[in-house]
């Protein structure tokens, strides 16, 4: 190994772990930085010891292969400089700024792989700030990390294939009061199904068997619904919706899991110098990379933070990024691996494109949000305030400007959960595709610490 090579991988989910595996196999020892206490990622999140008792119920026939995969990942991480609880909050001049268990630190790298995943993409609705509303991904993390159901009567609502997976996981752990309200019509899924089958027949059929499992388990399933409002005095008590035939319905509930697909976490990539392109199918901005994830002289991006694709695509992309990185170090490329991973990645991306067509992001709803609906949860900015800012006569209507005027996107989550809807509201006013919110460091709130050195002794004026 060249002594002046220092490879940093940010994120120990499927993409980061695949990159680490490929580099370790080539005899290198990357630094792997992970914000949470465990490797694994989100969809493939490791189970809390409290939930692990139910491992075989939760994973069924896959339980053994998942255990094998996790053991293999741990074996790879033992050969890395693996740092958990470590947030990379800024990137500049080939250096990452870190906040870890022992405080602030920085890391100068020669090569950087960013694989920080995605979070739920949300369309606001009346009542979505009430206690008891969680993201759809959060509802799954509740099981796996918090060993808890989010409520006694749970509604999974929105437009995502994960509605069905999350409900099945609740069912497998014994929850018996579950409703799935899917806003996407059955016809759209039927149209996209042949493409899903062509790209990934196994996964497509798994989806069908998931729905059968929910139906057998007595889960209420409704497709093509319109979500109207979540109501409750100080917490969720019911969700009002209309069926596909326009009949008004009420679901009594004490918890709602809301999700409309996934949103790439692109902040760190932007700070590391990536440029962006708008993807009209996903209606979001992804960083530009070549076929193997290279985004700059020293920069590689992989997994959902580069482009939404799921765990299998992330594994292929992480491996390809590491192959490309090895080539840049003058190592011979493994042509067989590159061919295999490129094929896997293409298949998964084709599948995801069909899925995103079936479970469509409800972009147009942003324009119809009532004025009193909160769009920004952190700073409590309403749709009406955003509309007023859009009507400001001075200067161009641009998403970052609307953010400055309204403070929508300036709160603690830094636009992660209001950003997509804010973008669509601006887009509906301009007729252009949604703009992109610019990133500023720190990418998460961090404590401000001014270390001015030892205080001068009193009376000792200098």
């Amino acid at each position, binding site marked *: 190994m060249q002594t002046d090579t220092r490879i940093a991988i940010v994120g120990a989910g499927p993409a980061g772990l695949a990159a680490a595996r490929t580099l370790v196999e080539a005899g290198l020892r990357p630094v792997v930085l992970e914000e949470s206490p465990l490797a694994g990622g989100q969809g493939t999140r490791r189970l809390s010891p*409290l939930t692990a008792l139910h491992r075989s119920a939760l994973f069924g026939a896959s339980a053994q292969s998942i255990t094998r995969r996790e053991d293999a990942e741990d074996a790879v991480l033992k050969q890395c400089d693996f740092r958990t609880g470590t947030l990379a909050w800024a990137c500049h001049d080939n250096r990452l700024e870190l906040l870890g268990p022992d405080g602030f630190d920085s890391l100068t790298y020669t090569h950087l792989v960013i694989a920080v995943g995605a979070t739920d993409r949300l369309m606001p609705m009346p009542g979505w*700030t009430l206690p*008891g509303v969680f993201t759809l991904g*959060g509802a799954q993390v*509740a099981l796996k*990390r918090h*060993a808890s*159901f*989010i409520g006694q009567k749970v509604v999974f609502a929105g437009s995502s294939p994960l509605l069905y997976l999350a409900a099945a996981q609740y069912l497998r752990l014994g929850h018996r009061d579950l409703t799935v309200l899917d806003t996407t019509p059955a016809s759209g899924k039927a149209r996209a199904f042949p493409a899903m089958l062509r790209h990934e027949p196994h996964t497509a059929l798994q989806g069908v068997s998931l729905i059968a499992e929910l139906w057998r388990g007595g889960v209420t399933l409704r497709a093509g619904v319109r979500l109207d409002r979540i109501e409750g005095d100080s917490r969720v008590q019911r969700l009002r919706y209309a069926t596909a035939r326009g009949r008004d319905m009420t679901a009594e509930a004490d918890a709602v899991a809301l999700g409309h697909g996934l949103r790439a976490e692109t902040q760190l990539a932007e700070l590391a110098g990536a440029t962006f392109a708008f993807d009209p199918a996903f209606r979001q901005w992804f960083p530009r990379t070549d076929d193997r994830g290279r985004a700059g002289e020293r920069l590689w991006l992989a997994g959902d933070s580069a482009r939404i694709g799921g765990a299998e695509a992330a594994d292929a992309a992480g491996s390809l990024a590491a192959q490309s990185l090895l080539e840049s170090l003058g190592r011979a490329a493994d042509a067989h691996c590159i061919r295999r991973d490129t094929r896997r990645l293409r298949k998964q991306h084709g599948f995801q494109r069909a899925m995103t067509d079936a479970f469509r992001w409800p972009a147009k709803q942003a324009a119809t949000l009532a004025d009193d609906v909160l769009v920004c949860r952190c700073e409590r900015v309403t749709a009406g305030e955003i509309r007023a800012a859009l009507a400001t006569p001075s200067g161009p209507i641009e998403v970052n400007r609307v953010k400055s005027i309204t403070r929508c996107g300036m709160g603690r*989550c830094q636009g992660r959960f209001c950003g997509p809807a804010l973008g669509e509201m601006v887009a509906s006013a301009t007729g252009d595709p949604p703009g992109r919110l610019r990133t500023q460091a720190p990418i998460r709130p961090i404590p401000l610490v001014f270390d001015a050195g030892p205080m001068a002794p009193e009376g000792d004026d200098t």
Partner: protein
Amino acid sequence: MVIFVARHLFQPIDPGTPRPLRFEFDGAEITARRNDTVLAAVLASRERCGVNEFDGGGRAGFCLMGSCQECTMWDEDGRRLRGCMTEAREGLRLRSRPHCGSD
């Protein structure tokens, strides 16, 4: 008709799991399972873990994976932490709002 509404949000996946750990949240005692998170322990007995500074509405976490910051809490020294990313430990003393004006 009286509708029973539980005064807590989360349901432990195994209701019988012992709760041997104790910590303090806004001066009240919270019990927790071993390997519990602070947020899961709080929401197992309450319906919120704080209030929004702008309109006083309850907040009870949202993404549960460290991204939304809606389960922000503070320790006695004014340090901010995320309830969903913090393991419950015996003797913790936490607050739903900052103690000494930091942050």
